[in-house]
């Protein structure tokens, strides 16, 4: 059996184990009840997404400095996967909020920052779709990607600061603060599982991009011959 399938099965098992832990190992939260269990999925996705964007940032730097195609491929793969994880955060957040607070969206600091993060990387992908020539596309999106990632701490910082001056109901609470020890262990296990999933998805997406590169090479050969 090819390595990939084994790896994929391993990630799937890890993820299912984390889900199991979220429901049966972690204790029920006092105030919110069972709905709080979404937290393990929601927050772990957020962390994995952010790591994906960090990978994208490193890939962008590598491309700008070395101009090796593979870094462009890693960059776009990590950005797309990061966007997928961020989308999950934005979907699970309101689903969590609605039963607890009766409203879907609250402009809670972290969720709002995540929304801006999402918009930044959507912009990254849109930029890529607007530049045809592969090398130019790689360079321009790498530089925008660098700017976008540098902006991330500023976005999170500004929004959090702003929110402390105009407080709103804090729904999610902060992970790690007021997390009971068992909860903390389940949380970090979930983070691990989501990161494994992230790496798997990035590598799959990278394979597609690499294949595209191969295809374009062959096309050039065919035209030349």
């Amino acid at each position, binding site marked *: 059996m090819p390595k990939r399938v084994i790896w994929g099965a391993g990630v799937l098992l890890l993820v299912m184990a984390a889900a199991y832990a979220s429901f049966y190992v972690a204790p029920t939260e006092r105030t919110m009840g069972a709905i709080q269990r979404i937290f393990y999925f929601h927050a772990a996705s957020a962390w994995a997404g952010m790591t994906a964007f960090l990978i994208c940032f490193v890939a962008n730097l590598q491309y700008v400095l070395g101009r090796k195609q593979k870094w462009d491929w890693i960059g776009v793969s990590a950005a797309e996967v990061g966007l*997928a994880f961020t989308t*999950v955060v934005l979907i699970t957040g309101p*689903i969590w909020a609605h039963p607890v607070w009766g409203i879907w969206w609250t402009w809670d600091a972290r969720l709002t920052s995540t929304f801006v993060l999402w918009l930044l990387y959507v912009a990254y992908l849109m930029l890529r779709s607007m530049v045809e020539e592969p090398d130019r596309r790689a360079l321009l999106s790498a530089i925008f990607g660098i700017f976008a990632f540098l902006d991330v701490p500023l976005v999170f910082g500004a929004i959090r600061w702003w929110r402390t001056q105009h407080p709103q109901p804090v729904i999610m609470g902060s992970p790690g603060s007021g997390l009971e020890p068992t909860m903390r262990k389940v949380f970090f296990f979930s983070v691990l599982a989501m990161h494994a999933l992230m790496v798997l*998805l990035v590598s*799959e997406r990278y394979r*597609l991009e690499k294949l595209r590169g191969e*295809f374009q090479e062959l*096309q050039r*050969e065919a035209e030349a011959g």
Partner: protein
Amino acid sequence: MKNLDSIFAAYLLGWGVFFVFYLSVARRTAALRGEVERLKASLTKGK
């Protein structure tokens, strides 16, 4: 369990996103691999 439907919805939609992403990548990879094989074959034939 209270709010079971919300928990269910969250997990369903969340995992849905990952599945859709994975399936889309897998589909495109398979299609592209087919194209690459075709192109390789026609190139070696030409040579």
